[in-house]
């Protein structure tokens, strides 16, 4: 079975072709980050208008490059959660193509796509596992027994970890997306000059809160600001270092706790923040101590992409789960409401 996957839930337009026998045949991504950098964040309607402009040429390209013209057995598209205008573009294009080609369409949950992305790698993790979904819009710990069998263990009560990275970056006049810029700056930072709190780690439970860390960053930036309103370069690097350590430590503590509570020894991290090298490094060290392992996708499949949607869609197609002749998108869609395979 050969599946075309379409991702357009937020600021990335991604397409891919996945074959149930041969694996991933190819993927294409058109990133709108340049457009958004100007605004310090994602621009919803601008994003959906850009999906319209980019999607058909991207699909043309991937079908030709993977020699899949006339050979697609199903079309999978992200049907939620996400921005409604952006979701509708992928949904309408995906559903219409499937109808025209006389093949099934599959609506895919964006976060299921992310948590299955590490399964695209050689030596994939085996079920069951605990997944940390960590991006600009989400910070969730999920118990994964099998595809579609999810139990929410904990989530952010306010800002997502990636959002905290974006906003901390903005406070120090760094570009969007904030994560890679903070990480790069943190490498020059001196450890120990600033001590940031590790929110909600001193009490039981698996929920997160990153809003206070954002406020702490603002206070630290303001207190150390010079005439131009910003701290000097070294101080910014020291703040970036302390901020990143605080976010990473908080995530590591909760991941370890989640594995122990579920009595599991496999952790999967997915979403944009899972590309953070410091997070990967600290998780590897911490989990080795409790006889556990962490799995993640290659960098390009941590952020939004079409490959994870084609893969997740293919898994559901193979058990006969397809969409009726309608376009339904769900901007708010809890992961644990998904059906089992």
């Amino acid at each position, binding site marked *: 079975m050969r599946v075309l996957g379409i991702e357009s839930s937020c600021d990335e337009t991604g397409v891919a072709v996945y074959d149930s026998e041969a694996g991933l045949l190819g993927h294409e991504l058109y990133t709108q980050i340049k457009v958004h950098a100007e605004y310090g964040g994602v*621009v919803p309607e601008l994003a959906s208008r850009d999906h319209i402009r980019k999607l058909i040429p991207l699909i043309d390209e991937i079908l030709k490059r993977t020699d899949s013209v006339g050979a697609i057995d199903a079309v999978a598209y992200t049907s939620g959660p996400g921005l409604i205008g952006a979701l509708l573009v992928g949904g309408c294009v995906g559903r219409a193509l499937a109808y025209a080609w006389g093949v099934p369409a599959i609506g895919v949950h964006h976060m299921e796509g992310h948590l299955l992305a590490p399964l695209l790698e050689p030596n994939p993790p085996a079920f069951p596992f605990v997944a940390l979904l960590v991006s600009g819009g989400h910070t969730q710990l999920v118990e994964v027994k099998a595809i579609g069998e999810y139990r929410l263990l904990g989530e952010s009560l306010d800002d997502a970890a990636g959002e905290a990275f974006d*906003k901390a970056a903005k406070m120090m006049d760094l570009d969007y997306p904030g994560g890679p810029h903070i990480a790069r700056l943190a490498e020059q930072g001196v450890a120990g000059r600033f001590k940031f709190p590790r929110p909600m780690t001193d009490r039981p439970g698996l929920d997160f809160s990153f809003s206070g860390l954002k406020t702490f960053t603002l*206070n630290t930036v303001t207190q150390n600001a010079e005439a131009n309103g910003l701290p000097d370069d070294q101080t910014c690097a020291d703040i970036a270092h302390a901020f990143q350590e605080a976010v990473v430590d908080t995530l590591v503590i909760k991941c370890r706790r989640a594995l122990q509570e579920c009595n599991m020894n496999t952790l999967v991290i997915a979403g944009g923040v899972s590309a953070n090298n410091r997070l990967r490094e600290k998780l590897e060290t911490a989990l080795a101590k409790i006889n556990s392992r962490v799995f993640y996708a290659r960098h390009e499949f941590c952020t939004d992409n079409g490959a994870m949607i084609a893969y997740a869609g293919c898994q559901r197609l193979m058990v006969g789960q397809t969409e009726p002749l309608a376009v339904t998108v769900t901007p708010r869609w809890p992961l644990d409401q998904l059906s089992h395979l």
Partner: protein
Amino acid sequence: MSVKANSAAMSFSVVLADEAATVSAGRKFGEALKQGAVVYLEGVLGAGKTTFCRGVLQAFGHSGAVKSPTYTLVEPYVLDIGTVYHFDLYRLGDPEELEYMGIRDYFQESAVCLVEWPVRGEGYLPCADIVATLSPLGDGRRLELQAINERGAAILILMS
């Protein structure tokens, strides 16, 4: 917490020592909003706008998490006591984009609309009844509530 009324109860100013004080001030403010209102929230990133909104929502009986609407633009809370819409226009590139998300449907008389980053929606947002401004003050915050019209003034009188 000291509340000081000035200029004929058209504005309030209060110093908030910490997060708990911000939530508590939001709750007190929320108690006075039961008839609905449009509230603009001003303040830099990390000033405590969403935290203040959490207090307002508690006054309407919401006890769960209040997630930042930065990535969703608006989080609706349909509660027994009333409906509260929590907007965050931070990511808007052009105010006209509000038309695409059906902004007019949200602003009903009886609803409470809390709007963070209203400047990004200028020209497409209805006027505020109250502008709430949070500004950093040492490790705490200063909250100023300013009534813009009679409806806003009535809310501030209810609070005093």
